[in-house]
């Protein structure tokens, strides 16, 4: 289970047809849960751990976890984007709860909450 979507934090980007996590996953692994409308991951075993989904979620509702084969349950690694968008701070918590932070230069481009898809009208669109 490399990436976990916390349903309590996901607001579906206010009903976006095509929210950023859906757009940014190179493996097309995010979809709307037909029952709840929240975003779910289609198939965790297909995940590449590349993390664009985690970094782009405005709610920080997506958490990256190592699969259990690779690491133990309590450690965490969470990226936070600065308001200036030119730094990213990674918050690392090890299995004993020790917190470490890394602030690294980057250039985070703004991402719209929704985006039209070529050849698709809003009416016939469904994830």
């Amino acid at each position, binding site marked *: 289970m490399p990436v976990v979507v916390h349903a309590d934090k996901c607001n579906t980007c206010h009903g976006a047809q095509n929210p950023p996590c859906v757009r940014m*996953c190179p493996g097309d692994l995010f979809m709307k849960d037909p029952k709840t409308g929240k975003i779910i991951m289609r198939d965790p*075993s297909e995940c590449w751990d590349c*993390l664009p989904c985690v970094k782009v979620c405005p709610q920080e509702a997506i958490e990256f976890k190592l699969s259990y*084969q*690779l690491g133990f349950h309590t450690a965490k690694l969470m990226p936070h984007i600065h308001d200036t968008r030119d730094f990213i701070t990674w918050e690392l918590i090890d299995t004993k709860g020790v917190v470490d932070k890394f602030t690294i*230069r980057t*250039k985070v*481009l703004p991402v719209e909450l929704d985006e039209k898809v070529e050849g698709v009208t809003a009416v016939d669109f469904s*994830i």
Partner: protein
Amino acid sequence: MEQNVIETDILIIGGGTAGCLAAVELKEQYPNLSVTIMEKAHIDRSGCLAGGMNAINAYLNPGETPESFVKYVRFDSCGIVREDLVLTMSELFEYCVKKVEKWGLPILCDEKGNYIPRGRWNIKINGESLKPIIARAAKNVGTKILNWVVATNYIMVNGRVAGAIGFSIRNGNLFVVKAKATIIATGGAAGIYKPNNAHDAQHKTWYCPYNTGAGFAMGIRAGAEMTSFEMRYIGLRVKDTIAPTGTIALGVGAPQINSKGEKFMATKYAHIGGDGAPTPYRSHGPLQEIKEGRGPVFLDTRHITPQQARDLKSAYLDMYPSMVLYWAANEIDPSKEPVEVQTTEPYIVGGHTQSGYWVDVNRKTTIEGLYAAGDVSGGAPYKFVSGCWAEGVIAARAAGEYAQKVEHADVPAELISAERDRVIEPILNFTHKKEGIKPYDMEVRLQKIMEEYAGGAATFYEVNEERLLVARRRLATLPEQFKYIIAEDLHDLMEAHEVIDRVLVAQTLVEHMLFRKETRWPGYCTRTDYTELDDQNWLKFVNTRRDPATGNIEVFTRPYEQIVPGDRYKPR
């Protein structure tokens, strides 16, 4: 299945790093041409760079020249490369790197503003957002972007590529894109062999698991000439996470050691450069230690300071964050404990090794109207990110010139309807409630055949004539099964075509491995029946061409030409 028909001057298939640079170059050099990118995912985060990069691994640092680069790449590829391609690519590193820096890529500089070298050919970057940066540049110049359109085949009219057909995984529409010239830039192929990790981490692979060899397969189906598939890429990676080791080996100068603490590369492989031996030997060396009972093998990082360990983590966060989480989750401190390494499953790529389309110096393939750039283009290894940029630029210049001289071809309607029927079959199998097989089932079957008979990790990447013949026979039965594949939705349909493409790549690969009766790249493809490098008979390229009418794969050779003088087995 509705049809969207689009006419464009140039079609670029694959919006990764090569495709984006090609689009920008085209619009800058030929502002009147219309350019369309067909991309299977979303261009902002697709392909190999989705997660980011922490270095430009092919760059001419002060004191180096295109010729010295060719010498190094030739040495690293055990004496055989397309020197014309490597030369033309390296001449454009500076142009491309400066360009992308201008778009906003942070490159690490010293106080004087010079790039900081990391080894002979590397510079460090903060490339977490590299992909969105180049994607924005491609959009800003006015490229039309078709996101989520999976390319399935070229439109072939009278032996010329006149565009391509794909389908949208968002609404199932068929996209027919007619183009005067086409650039293929889809990347290489992962998923041909069994992955290192199983279960919920099966895609914890080094190479992008969503690069499935579509570009190769489309070319093979159309009868394009392919080269050097037998030079498979097998990387030395950090165990379990499959994180790149260059960050450690080059970043903090860590040597390889075996379980006895012996620096085996420095002693046993001294004659070919020790820890600086050609890349295949840096996988072959540790593999032999493990095979002979002196594993596990490590990169010895115990000499580094806590600050260096921290810098190492920072570097990984730009590109491979799971490495940092792995250390935290397993209570590992790389400054106190050496980092265990292992080799990956084989990948078929043109960016690290040289598998791909046989191209001329303008990156024109053997098919009229078709150009290839990046991982899908063969003959020029050691491309990495900047080489893919350079090839995108070269292909763009040539394709732009060609497109001005020709008109759109008339595309017969039967051709489109035949491809539509082929594309949609797995969905129809589901709606007609037929009994069948899931794409994943076929993928696992393919991987098992390749793993056991065609030199997977479990067999130490070793092959021989007899095993390869079994692989050939087993693989030959898979295409007969394509008609039973079932796709429940459009995501499944994409996976169905991915596995169909992978099978074709695997069949071609086996023909290549059967033909080269020597061991040119130990560790990448070790032949147990022809164990030595044999310059007398095999200093040449092994190429294949599949006959579109019969499906027969013809194997033949092309000569190697030395352009840059010097000992081909020396790095300088």
